[in-house]
């Protein structure tokens, strides 16, 4: 592995901007899917269980 090492990057000079980009995309996907699943798939489905109507 170390033979392919082109440079040594320390903690303070490493800015994980690629990670930030990836997890931001993940965050957006998760949020959109959650809203879709809850409000379309679940609440849009038939026969939702409600509290006993007194």
């Amino acid at each position, binding site marked *: 592995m170390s033979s392919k*090492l082109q440079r040594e*990057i320390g903690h303070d000079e490493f800015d*994980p901007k*690629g*990670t930030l980009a990836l997890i931001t995309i993940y965050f957006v*996907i998760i949020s959109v899917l*959650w809203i879709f*699943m*809850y409000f379309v798939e679940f609440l849009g489905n038939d026969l939702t*269980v409600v509290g006993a109507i007194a």
Partner: protein
Amino acid sequence: MSLGANSGTYLDQFPGEAKVIRTAFYSSFIALGIGALMGLLQVFHRLDILRLIPSEDYYSYLTLHAVLLVLTFSIFFLVGVFTWAVTTSLDRGLEDLRYTWGWYGLMAVGTLMAGVAIIGGFFDSIPMSAAVLYTFYAPLQAHPLFYLGLALFIVGSWLAGLDWFRSWWAWRSENPDERIPLPTFMALTTTLFWIISSMGVAISVVVFLLPWSLGLIGQVDALLTRTLFWFFGHAVVYFWLMPAYMLWYVMLPKISGGKLFSDPLARVVFVLFLILSTPTGIHHQYLDPGIAEGFKFIVMVNTMFLLLPSLLTAFTVVASMEHGARQRGGTGYFGWLRALPWRDPVFAGMALAGLMFAAAGFSGMINAGMNINYLVHNTWWIVGHFHLTIGTAVALTFMATTYWFLPQLTNKEIWSKSVGLAQVLLWFVGMTLMSNAMHRSGLVGVPRRTAEPQYSGFDYEVAAGSMAELNMQVAIGGTLLFISTLLFLTVVVMTVWGSKVDTLPANGYAETLSGPEDAPLVLDNLKLWTAIAVVLVVLAYALPLASIIGRRGLFGPGGSPSPQFIDTLVFTGQAIVDSAVGVIR
């Protein structure tokens, strides 16, 4: 702390320990092979492509598939991995190898007993069976051998945990001022919550189910034993997952050519798992009558917060890979991804497992949601979910790292890295197809755990695509997964068959960018975290359990056993007990 380059492979360092780990791995791989075959047969049976056995016997396939893969394959592999982690990071052998072989033996005997009980279900001539599935909900009743085997297996795993603790205690007395090395820290925190959580299933099996299956007590409570099962049933998934997490933290950065981004946050993550894994089990019982909505809500809040350590892991692990990629010359926001060693099956398998886990995280979030459970509970969606978690995040990580561990344990080179690469890719593709179709089928109501999901009175209403298309995806996916397993086993066998070389890289694990010196000392206070974990468990479980026992009594309001086996032993036992009672009267 990373070991010097001169210390050789793991086999060179710890030949005795290497033998135990090898044996545990081989046990694990045998279970993988049989379990995968059962999986393939199940796919064909359910989809009505090929039904080799009557549908009544399908549930023995299913029990064997689940028990062999989630308990035997995963746990045998992980005790090996943790043994490697503790000995490597403390740089000392285990205290007493006879003790180590003892717990391995207990686990092996337990597995064989449970396995024999299950396999008996396939043969009319063998008067035993245990078609009770992996959850063995009473009053479904298995042969006593099944429960006894399970109990031995769990006790064996506890003794394994104690083995790692003994190493740490001995090391600590010689190194009183040192931080616990990260891999050991991970093994110890995992052991702690495993012991806390498996207490639930141990009580259920030893106090209720085993005596009941022997005819010593007449009835057990369906809801109480089920709740005790889930006391363990969610934490156990973290027991499988933590070794995979550990490998992502301490192995993946090294394979990527970088360092672990943050040792302190890794410790925080494992502490969170220690305290939150167990008080979440009731989320598997959102749709159970007999448990108040308030308890369900509290457990949901715990479960949702359990997302936090996984989300933090996603960041740390991806950042560690990015560090490797940039050291290898990667640039840009996404361009660095190309600089990663994708042709290395160890890396590719682990990275793809992590990617699948991100998807699993999403379906897990849905499963954690209390009322949305009405939509997905007991549908094939759930099966799709856990084939991404245990079936990929864990299984694919274990298979991929085998390509690293096996040379370390045998001093032999991997037989073929290209076959290994093909294997991990096939798993990824197969699981993508199968799991996607399972999730979508679940949303239209296709149930899990059934031999014949085809009913005569109605059709499933698929909004986009068709049922035939979904079934095709499952059939192709399942087949690819089976082929992938065969390739994996081939590589293992051919590697073990090969001859020793002395050009292997030394044993070791990733260094850190931000090391333990940056982690607050309190993180290493295992007593404190264990105490908090116990308090949280008591808070989450004392009232629900008291309420169940208060409503239904310790042994339930009634209900006869429903034996999923026919056995003279039990009737004999029952007769002996009856006549003994008669004599006393």
